[in-house]
């Protein structure tokens, strides 16, 4: 039993719903009580879908439990098949139905459903979560549909360069994009265009927009691109094992990753690497000029970004990508990296280690908030929940990952992947940072007569800018330090005044460091001098 106040991921059957709702021609019969129909609103409200997810719930009640819930499952399946005429049917159960063990999958197998493919989903609700459920569903569905096509063992693997002999353009599948995934809709468009530019076609995008018949065409492609490993990992591995289809693993988020992705893809497909993708002596390539991020980042205007402390938390794919972009492409200092994706914990840990950090793998948002406060970042890159935590701490934040809020499904095209994705990332990360700086300037100048009080910025009053940077501070009695030590440490009025001049988003950290320094030095009073001493002491 585990206390959860808020959860990053829903139960595994919500992952299955994401697959079903992303596709066309698939219907999902879910053995579940009425309350579980809440999940429809994730699609109709957050994604603003214009139709209900293709899910029939049995909505069994307590009074059904004594009777025949199995009969209810069967009649629900029959009614759903008749009404929706799906091309493939998913059958499964939510947490409660798992306990009553009606085994809807086996029940469906006994029914005459006109020969439509039926995939029975077993998603352990008490040990697994949404992304796992989505990945398992995609895998089971693809496997179920492709069973008959699996070449016998020992047969030679298809050559990913066979397109040449067949006299056609190379083609790949984009696997993983789904509803409720972060900017998937726009990433598909961006990556498809990117590939088209290199003469590579997209065979199947799945699950987003695919029909069961499209899934059956998966093996006609020369390779698979695992665009979103959280959902596509298992199915790509299975396709590699069973069909010998190679998988492109680099996720093209950021400049370096997009270039690496293109190189990997060219390598797998046996395409000659275009000159613009070749790495020059200085480590750059000509293709990256298709994005503005590298130049914007080099421009003198961005000097102030240097060493900005960022805290990163999200799903594994986006968190790892963010850490790479932040540290290498924007010149930030990553002071925290973590993810709620336990299945990809290893990758996150490795990425953190490269940055000299220990990864935080947790689905407890309060632990994440505590780590955030401890790291005293100047920018947070996280989920909607980190946005709220950051707001409480007065730190600017940009959202980089699911779980989604309706704001994360913008009207404009706003990818994360490819060259344009890098542009979007530059804007959406740097903008809140500038807002944070302005907030600080407003705090500094609030006593100038030109300053119009009540001017609130985008931070909506989350921060409390310097309250007493002026003479009034001298009147206040010295306050005891906030942390216990050997003896009480006191801030002098001029020490407090000096502290107040420090930007609000690092003030807490400076206060803590200075007090630690004072204790170390056996100082009882922190005046402005001591603060500068401490600052010098802690300077990198």
């Amino acid at each position: 039993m585990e206390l959860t106040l808020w959860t990053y991921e829903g139960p595994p059957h919500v992952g299955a719903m994401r697959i079903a709702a992303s596709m066309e021609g698939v219907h999902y019969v879910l053995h579940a009580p009425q309350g579980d129909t809440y999940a429809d609103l994730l699609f109709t409200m957050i994604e603003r879908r214009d139709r209900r997810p293709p899910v029939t719930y049995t909505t069994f009640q307590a009074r059904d439990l004594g009777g025949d819930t199995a009969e209810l499952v069967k009649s629900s399946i029959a009614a759903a098949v008749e009404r929706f005429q799906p091309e493939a049917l998913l059958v499964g159960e939510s947490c409660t139905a798992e306990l009553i063990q009606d085994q809807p999958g086996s029940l469906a197998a006994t029914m005459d459903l006109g020969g439509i493919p039926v995939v029975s989903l077993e998603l352990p609700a008490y040990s697994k979560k949404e992304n796992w459920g989505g990945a398992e569903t995609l895998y089971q569905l693809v496997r179920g549909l492709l069973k008959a096509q699996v070449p016998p063992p020992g047969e030679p693997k298809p050559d990913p360069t066979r397109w040449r002999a067949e006299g056609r353009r190379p083609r790949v599948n984009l696997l993983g994009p789904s509803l409720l995934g972060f900017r998937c809709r726009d990433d598909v468009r961006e990556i498809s265009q990117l590939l088209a530019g290199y003469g590579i076609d997209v065979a199947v995008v799945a699950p987003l927009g695919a029909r069961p018949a499209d899934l059956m065409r998966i093996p006609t492609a020369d390779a698979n691109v695992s665009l979103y490993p959280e959902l596509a990992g298992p199915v790509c591995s299975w396709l590699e094992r069973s069909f010998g289809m190679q998988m492109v693993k680099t996720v093209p988020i950021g400049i370096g990753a997009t270039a690496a992705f293109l190189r990997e893809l060219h390598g797998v497909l046996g395409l000659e690497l275009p000159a613009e993708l070749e790495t020059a002596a200085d480590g750059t390539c000509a293709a990256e000029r298709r994005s503005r991020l590298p130049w914007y980042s080099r421009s003198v205007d961005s000097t102030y970004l240097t060493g900005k402390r960022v805290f990163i938390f999200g799903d594994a794919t986006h968190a790892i990508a963010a850490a790479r972009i932040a540290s290498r492409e924007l010149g930030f200092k990553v002071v925290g990296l973590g993810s709620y994706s336990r299945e990809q914990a290893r990758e996150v840990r490795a990425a953190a280690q490269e940055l000299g950090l220990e990864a935080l793998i947790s689905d407890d948002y309060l632990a994440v908030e505590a780590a955030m406060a401890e790291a005293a970042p100047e920018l947070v890159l996280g989920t909607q929940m980190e946005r709220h935590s950051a707001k409480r701490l007065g730190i600017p934040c940009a959202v980089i990952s699911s779980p989604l809020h309706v704001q994360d499904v913008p009207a404009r095209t706003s990818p994360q992947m490819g060259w344009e994705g890098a542009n979007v990332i530059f804007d959406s990360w740097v903008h809140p940072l500038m807002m944070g700086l302005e907030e600080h300037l407003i705090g500094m100048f609030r006593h100038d007569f030109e300053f119009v009080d009540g001017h609130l910025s985008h931070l909506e009053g989350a921060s409390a800018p310097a309250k007493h940077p002026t003479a009034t501070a001298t009147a206040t009695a010295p306050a005891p330090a906030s942390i216990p030590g050997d003896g009480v440490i006191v801030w002098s009025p001029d020490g407090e005044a000096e502290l107040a001049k420090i930007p609000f988003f690092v003030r807490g950290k400076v206060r803590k460091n200075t007090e630690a320094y004072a204790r170390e030095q056996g100082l009882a009073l922190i005046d402005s001098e001591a603060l500068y001493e401490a600052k010098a002491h802690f300077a990198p």
Partner: protein
Amino acid sequence: MGASSVIGDMTTGLAEQPPLQLFKESGQREVFCGLTSIVWLHRRMPDAFFLVVGSRTCAHLVQSAAGVMIFAEPRFGTAILGERDLAGLADANDELDRLVKDLLERRPEIRTLFLVGSCPSEVIKLDLAKAAERLNTQLAGRVMVLNYSGSGIETTFTQGEDQALLAMVPLMPSSEVDQLLIVGTLADAVEDRLVQLFGRLGIPVVTSLPPRRSTELPPIGPGTRVLLAQPFLSATARALVSRGGQLLTAPYPFGVEGSRAWMAAGAAAFGVAPALVAEVLDPLVERGQRAIAPHRELLAGKRLFLLPDSQLELSLARFLQRECGMELVEVGTPYLDRQLLDAELALLPPGTRITEGQDVERQLERVRAERPDLVVCGLGLANPLEAEGIATKWSIELVFSPIHGCDQAGDLAELFARSLRRRAALSFS
């Protein structure tokens, strides 16, 4: 599934009126479960914590219904059952005790802890009543532990509040005192206003269940007149009656007509002279009608279809038909408690089609066939219907917004008019 039957015509209180048409339907229901009511109950009682004992689905439902969290630490949470808990109930009980202890240590401000049962906890027969008893002994009065079920196999949406209040009834002190007890969560400002108005009517003591502080439960006894502010509190009402309370029947306080009749019922129970009632309430009614008027202009003659969701459907239908001039196509309700809704049924126009229960696909077929001007429905259905060109009003807003009383009647009408007004305001040519 998909059974639908006419369970007979029912004659309303007035014998000369043609009957209402009452249908019962069963099939897939598109309704939240009772856990949802935690979203407003926890706001009402800031010293209470609601601990759902359930699954990740339950946790996800409550947070999805509440929208994105903006608070540091919410006063509700879920003890998510793991595989170990399912393997042995003894372990599950120990785990629950440990978890509650940790929680209360971290949240010393909590005075009342509600253990809220869910479908999984009920199916595995985890006895939360026993757990509450055990924890109460351990905690020795420091925190009161109560339990109720918000499970989807037992309760729909607003019934969760009924079960929560029911759990508090046994703790209410007995008293003979003459008092008016308002039952059902109201927005604080609305409650203050109603109490003030009852004061003007000369009713000395007006109390509320749930109270604002979970520890300050109102008394109950033979002097208590029970006035329900919400039409979904059947079990609580019965329990209050069995504690000696006298249940007043009236339409519910939505719109000026309902609000006036509701307050008048309270006044009558204390023998307040009708002249005083008129003196206090009639100006409010008149002002309320003026507030409704601009919305009535828009709503009058428009056809309304209410899908079963919040259990407020019959009361809202009555208000929208009688005070806003709308035509009722169909009024759905998750379930129908005649005792609590007789006064509302009596006010509905003859021939009104009322459906109890739901088969969502068939109901949507009727919506499409009827093409009403406005559909009241849950969040899962609103955008899909809008995309089909049918205007909607989400029902969940109705349980979160202050809509009770004469002073709110204009706002209530506006909630429905807004959907139509917005559509009219948009043009892309």
